[in-house]
């Protein structure tokens, strides 16, 4: 091994190990905090002296202000329906845009591109009023519709780009064999778009879990909260007072999501780069 190569690798490892520490530290610290006795930030250390499971128990005790299980179920319900709705809407619309030349197509594509840039929550007041007019404050279904609507423009664009990269010959030979449009879509286009569908499904699922504003505008009573609002209130009601319980709650939501992300990351990369460059 020559000297230059040795130093290059040494420096590379040094930088990477430094990054690994920076990444791992806050995560491990949270794990430590969740096992710490006591409630506050002050006494929290990374390796607790008397580890305890109290905070996890507290989460499932179901007190008035901490309905963790209920929030978890709410979030799960909203995420699952948003995911299903987004996948159906996005893939059908993208199929229409990718395979058909119809009147208004070009205008619709431009509209999608523009809508995707205006953040949905800048229309906050409108959504608030809308919920009141419809009598749908605290309604999960309204929230799900809003999430799906917010996901449609960008994801349709990406999905269309991906479908454009599937050769047209496949459709045409199926058409000659007498297959209907819907059948071509379900049996040829959908299976071939799997990586991109996984991406849309994942953004659909995790989008609501990362949203704070829309949910906090529409959901006002604790029993309807999603996890982000619930956990935020837990930390902020009395600053730092329930930090350890928050840490426990955060871990229980982060682990399943992190596993899904890590399993699907390959799809993400191939979906995004294909959709982007061949669009």
């Amino acid at each position: 091994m020559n000297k230059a190569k040795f130093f290059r690798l040494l420096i590379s490892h040094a930088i990477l190990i430094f990054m690994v520490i920076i990444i791992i530290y806050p995560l491990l610290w949270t794990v430590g905090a969740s096992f710490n006795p006591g409630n506050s930030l002050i006494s929290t250390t990374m390796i607790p002296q008397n580890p305890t499971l109290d905070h996890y128990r507290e989460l499932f005790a179901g007190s008035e202000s901490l309905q963790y299980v209920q929030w978890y179920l709410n979030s799960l319900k909203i995420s699952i329906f948003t995911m299903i709705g987004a996948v159906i809407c996005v893939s059908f619309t993208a199929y229409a845009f990718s395979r058909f030349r119809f009147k208004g197509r070009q205008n619709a594509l431009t509209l999608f591109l523009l809508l995707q840039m205006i953040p949905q929550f800048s229309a906050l007041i409108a959504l608030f009023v809308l919920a009141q007019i419809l009598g749908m404050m605290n309604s999960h279904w309204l929230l799900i519709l809003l999430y799906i609507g917010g996901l449609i423009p960008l994801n349709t664009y990406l999905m269309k780009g991906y479908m454009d990269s599937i050769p047209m010959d496949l459709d045409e030979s199926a058409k000659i064999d007498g297959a209907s449009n819907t059948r071509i879509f379900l049996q040829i286009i959908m299976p071939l778009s799997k990586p991109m569908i996984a991406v849309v499904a994942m953004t659909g699922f995790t989008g609501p879990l990362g949203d704070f504003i829309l949910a906090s505008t529409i959901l006002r009573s604790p029993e309807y909260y999603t996890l982000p609002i619930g956990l935020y209130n837990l930390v902020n009601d009395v600053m730092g007072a329930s930090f350890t319980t928050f840490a426990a709650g955060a871990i229980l939501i982060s682990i399943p999501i992190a596993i899904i992300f890590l399993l699907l990351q390959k799809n993400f990369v191939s979906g995004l780069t294909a959709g982007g460059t061949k669009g």
Partner: protein
Amino acid sequence: MQARKKALLLSILPGFGQFYNKQWIKGLLFLGLGISFFLVFGDLLNMGFWGLATLGTEVPRDNSIFLLAEGLIAVIVTVFGLAFYYVNLRDAYKNGKLRDENKPLSSLKSDYQNLIAQGYPYLISGPSLFILIFAVIFPILFSFALAFTNYDLYHSPPANLADWVGFDTFAKIFTVDIWRSTFFSVLGWTIIWTLVASTLQVALGIFMAVLVNQKDLRFKKFYRTILVLPWAVPGFVTILIFAGLFNDSFGAINNDILAMLGIDAIPWLTDENWTKVALILMQGWLGFPFIFLVTTGVLQSIPDDLYEAARIDGASIFAQFRNITMPMILIATAPVIITQYTFNFNNFNIIYLFNGGGPSVPGSTAGGTDILVSWIYKLTLQSSQYSLAAALTILLSVFVIAIALWQFRRTDAFKEGA
């Protein structure tokens, strides 16, 4: 008079043109739909347009904001009504023309088949369009409309009415001193934040990907898994954790790390500039793994021959990097990189969840680290200055769209193939 013109004129009342063409069933369908449109939406249209024009005349009977919303719904319904009307006129004209040319008229069955074939893309994108109108377009129109009213705490229902004021609110943003200075300082920080934070995360992501992707580096898999962790953990969780870590008096960063290095505690949450530093560092931490992932994908797809050929030609490692690796990465990830910038421009979560946009600035509605979106959020939910918030929304949208369009045009990444 030609049949096509007669049919067209008659179908000013939906269906009658079709009756003239002796297409009874279709005529009845059009007539029925036309009548039911007015039966169902008549009140809404009447009330809606009246409300839209006046925004209410009497308290407490009229609620300006509800009237405005109903008015906009009436406008949307009208657009659909006009589309239906256009179909009706066109159908009568087309069949009238066929009669003029002594050709057989299209039968209901063939019309139906035609509708299915031509209408297929509309049919399958219909639900999406409906959701878009309801969840995205209507709210945006509503916000835009609010910008031209004086809706705020003192003009809000049920005690008071709001009214149209034209461009007054926009004028005030630039003429009222406190608004102008707040607007420009928030805009300035928003731009700096977007540029610095996004560039940091993109540069870090690409650098790390290149580093890990060295052929002779060991433990690749381990490094890759760890480096994408910040992307895999939900963002709101990490931001709240960091808010705890950065806490001025109890946080581990001040108490453990800096104390260990012998540095005095830093006022992360109470000093504006330190909060900004913390925010940018955090966004680097949160944002780089995604770029890392995408870049890694690109790097693995670059064929080895390219490097081999370069090596034979005597290119140094740096020349290879500059002339092969970098261009490949930038071309393939350009759209993804652009979205990082637009994302950070509107990155509400990190600003609001970390420190609520604070520390607060005396006499101003925006905190020291508020970006445009979080300022708009505060104006809406905390100080009830709705019309100001709406006017700012318009300015923000124009700004983002202008920049993004310019960028997209430059990269051509979203150009159409076919």
